C-alpha cells in the first residue's frame, strides 16, 4: 500500500505539468490555491474574488455566495457543469470535463462559500 502511494506521488510529480487531477491527490494545495491557481481552478481568470489579484471581468464577482446560493449543492452544481444552467455559458465545466477532481471542487466550493 505504501508503495502504491509513493508511486502515485511519483507520477504526480512527473506529470505535474499537465496532470492536475492526480496532483490533487497529494492534497498539498490549500482551498485558496485550488481556487486561484492558474493551473487549477483559475477562477480569477473570469471572476473578481476578494483577496485575489488581477481578476478578469468575464463573469460576475463571486461575493455573498451564501445569499446567492442558500443551497450549497446548487453552488457545487454550477461549478461542476455550468452548461446545465446555461448551454452557451463561457464558464468551463470543471467537474464534467475533469478540469478539477471531485475533491478539488469541494475545496473550491468551501472557499468561495466563505466569501
Amino acid at each position: 500500500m505504501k508503495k502504491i502511494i509513493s508511486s502515485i506521488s511519483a507520477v504526480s510529480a512527473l506529470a505535474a505539468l499537465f496532470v492536475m487531477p492526480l496532483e490533487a491527490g497529494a492534497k498539498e494545495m490549500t482551498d485558496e490555491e485550488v481556487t486561484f491557481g492558474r493551473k487549477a481552478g483559475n477562477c480569477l481568470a473570469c471572476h473578481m474574488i476578494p483577496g485575489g489579484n488581477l481578476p478578469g471581468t468575464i463573469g460576475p464577482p463571486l461575493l455573498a455566495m451564501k445569499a446567492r446560493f442558500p443551497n450549497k449543492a446548487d453552488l457545487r452544481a454550477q461549478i461542476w457543469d455550468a452548461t446545465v444552467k446555461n448551454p452557451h455559458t463561457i464558464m468551463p465545466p470543471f467537474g464534467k470535463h475533469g478540469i478539477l477532481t471531485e475533491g478539488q471542487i469541494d475545496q473550491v466550493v468551501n472557499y468561495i462559500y466563505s466569501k
Partner: protein
Amino acid sequence: MKKILLITTAVFSLSTYSADLLPSCHNWNDGSSDTVKAAIAAATAENKKAAKVGFEWRDTVKFIKKATKLSATPCNSSALTMANMAKAQALDAQKQAKDQANAGPSF
C-alpha cells in the same frame, strides 16, 4: 452519459485510499498486465475517434504516452489511472463534437 460520468468520477476522484481498489497492482512484476494494455489500447482508439471529428484535446496523447511509459514499471496502477483518464477525455471530446454539431452565431 451516465457511464461517462461514472468513468470520469472514478478516474478523477482517485485519492490515496481508493488506490488499493484499483486492479493490476497485485501483479508486481508483470509490467505488461493485460488490463493496462487494454486500457491503453482503448484510450488510443477513442482518442483517434475524437481526432477524426476534429475535437481532440490537448493533453490526451500525453496521458497515453505517460501511461505507456508507466506500464513498464513493476507496479502499474498509475498507468491504468492515466490510461483511463485519457479515455475519459477522448469520450468527452467526442461528446463535445456532437454537442457542437450545429454551432453558429447567436445573432
